[in-house]
């Protein structure tokens, strides 16, 4: 199965719940009335899009209908998709690569969202592209977090820099950067402990790691990737906001999209914050990571395109 096919398959559950509901709003009606808009808004809210973004999106649809003087509800489907695409943008934002090497990527986020797993998957992808990859076990806090990353390193076949549990994560990052340079690695992925963004001492610690990375290598970190769980509701906005303030997040990876969660909160984030979604996670295996392409994403959601690879 090709790349798009796998994406489409993994979004089956999401598609079944979200798109079919949207379609239901548009079918079997005579005209376009207030009830229809209200129902549309409800479906969006149920996808975690959030009240204010849902209202914005519906408002755009309403304007589109007016501008084109549309009368039949069935035609709303296309307008809705267009507006959704408009809000989500078209561009894919790739992970920034430092041509002089190594590219340093810091991975951050709240507890249990999939940071370590995403690092494993990214390492696998870069290795498959022939790059030399290294991992830094920067979560020195959680029980067996280092062992978990180590298993990923073995699985993928890349080097890992680690210290003891309980040691200073800044020191791990420091060592890792120097090792990455001397071993001429192309990519260094730094894992960090999960932390809730409202804990200022933990955010300070993260800031410190970030500072060390920036100090040890000018221009680094080249990416600060915030991992968000697709099952998360409106709190994701608070996560994006506070992590960005602390460590200047450059991109988002949305994990666990293989469930029925619609990850609708991404729509809110893309609409309300200027941080691009770069990757999506669609399973627990090492092949289950995809670049986020808004158009593919919407197409896969709608089951519109066939496997084109």
């Amino acid at each position: 199965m090709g790349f798009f096919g796998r994406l489409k398959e993994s979004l089956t559950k999401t598609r079944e719940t979200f798109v079919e509901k949207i379609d239901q709003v548009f079918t079997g009606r005579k005209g376009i009335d207030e009830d229809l808009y209200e129902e549309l808004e409800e479906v969006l809210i149920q996808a975690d899009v959030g009240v204010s973004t849902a209202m914005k999106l519906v408002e755009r649809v309403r304007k589109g209908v007016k501008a084109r003087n549309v009368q039949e509800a069935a035609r709303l489907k296309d307008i809705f998709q267009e507006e959704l695409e408009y809000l989500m943008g078209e561009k894919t934002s790739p992970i920034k690569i430092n041509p002089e090497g190594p590219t340093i990527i810091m991975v951050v986020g709240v507890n249990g969202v999939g940071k370590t797993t995403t690092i494993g998957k990214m390492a696998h992808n870069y290795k498959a592209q022939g790059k030399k990859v290294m991992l830094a076990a920067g979560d020195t806090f959680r029980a067996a977090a280092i062992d978990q990353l180590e298993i990923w390193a073995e699985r993928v076949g890349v080097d890992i820099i680690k210290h003891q549990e309980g040691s200073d994560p800044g020191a791990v990052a420091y060592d890792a950067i120097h090792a990455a340079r001397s071993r001429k690695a192309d990519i260094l992925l730094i894992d960090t402990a999960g932390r809730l963004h409202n804990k200022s001492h933990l955010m300070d610690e993260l800031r410190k790691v970030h500072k060390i990375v920036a100090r040890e290598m000018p221009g680094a970190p080249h990416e600060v990737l915030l991992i968000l769980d697709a099952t998360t509701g409106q709190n994701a906005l608070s996560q994006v906001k506070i992590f960005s303030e602390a460590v200047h997040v450059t991109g988002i990876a949305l994990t666990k999209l293989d469930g029925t969660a619609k990850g609708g909160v991404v729509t809110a984030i893309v609409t309300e914050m200027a941080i691009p979604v770069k990757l999506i996670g669609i399973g627990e295996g090492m092949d289950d990571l995809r670049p986020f392409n808004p158009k593919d994403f919407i197409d896969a959601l709608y089951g519109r395109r066939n496997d084109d690879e």
Partner: protein
Amino acid sequence: MFKGLGERLDDIFKSLKGKGRITEDDVSQAMREVKMALLEADVNFKVVKEFVAQVKERAIGQDVLESLSPAQQVIKIVKDELTELLGGTQAKINIASKPPTIIMLVGLQGAGKTTTAGKLAKLLSKQGRRPLLVAGDIYRPAAIKQLQVLGEQLNIPVFSMGQENPVKIAQSAVENANSTGRDLVIIDTAGRLHVNEELMDELANIKGTVKPHEILLVVDAMTGQEAVNVADTFNQKLGLDGIIMTKLDGDARGGAALSVRKVTGTPIKFAGMGEKLDALEPFHPDRMADRILGMGDVLTLIEKA
């Protein structure tokens, strides 16, 4: 990030001063705000709709009390109703008449099951029980090690059989508890999506084999609208005995608590309040209600009045 309900309602009711009775129109306006506040708190949409209809009925026609502003009065009704829906404080684990008591923790990936297993072991051993932790997650890298590290920290034994079938592991663990005199068995299971039938069957098989006295669903307080489907599916498949909300030390409003409680009808027994092993507290419905409404200040607000 979001406006609390108090502020929202105050705006609406400014015009209401001096009226004798809360009219249907006033209530409708107020309920729109209540609805928004609940949705922004991630309470499931359907749950919100039902809830609002219920509260509306109670609020219409009530006298405007001397002591409370109309906003405060509506808040009080909403809060009381919400607290009631969230259930009482029941931080209790069903203890089997014939030991060992068997507890099984289930839930989505990353919800906090393994950590909660450690926390429960600590809490219950403080109450004089002799727990055995069981490493039933054979999939996640280092899941067994994670539980072993927690066991070591707590000085509580951890039963593991490597990558053996989880049903077999659970069964052997209970035998082990019997022969070593442990009176409490806490089974950690792998995180799984509720739509993954194969893995959901695995849980049903564990249940069928060891017949746990408590099957607890571990739910992340940050969960969005999907919480309803997750809780419903786990409950249908396993018949839950309770819920544990985790990561309540964060700033999420935690509306998922109301959704899962409503859809399963089972009590929320504990609240996870941190990563450390002593951070497990009884669940307090009234505090949760305040939090969902975004009004840590609601009590003081009413007391002041």
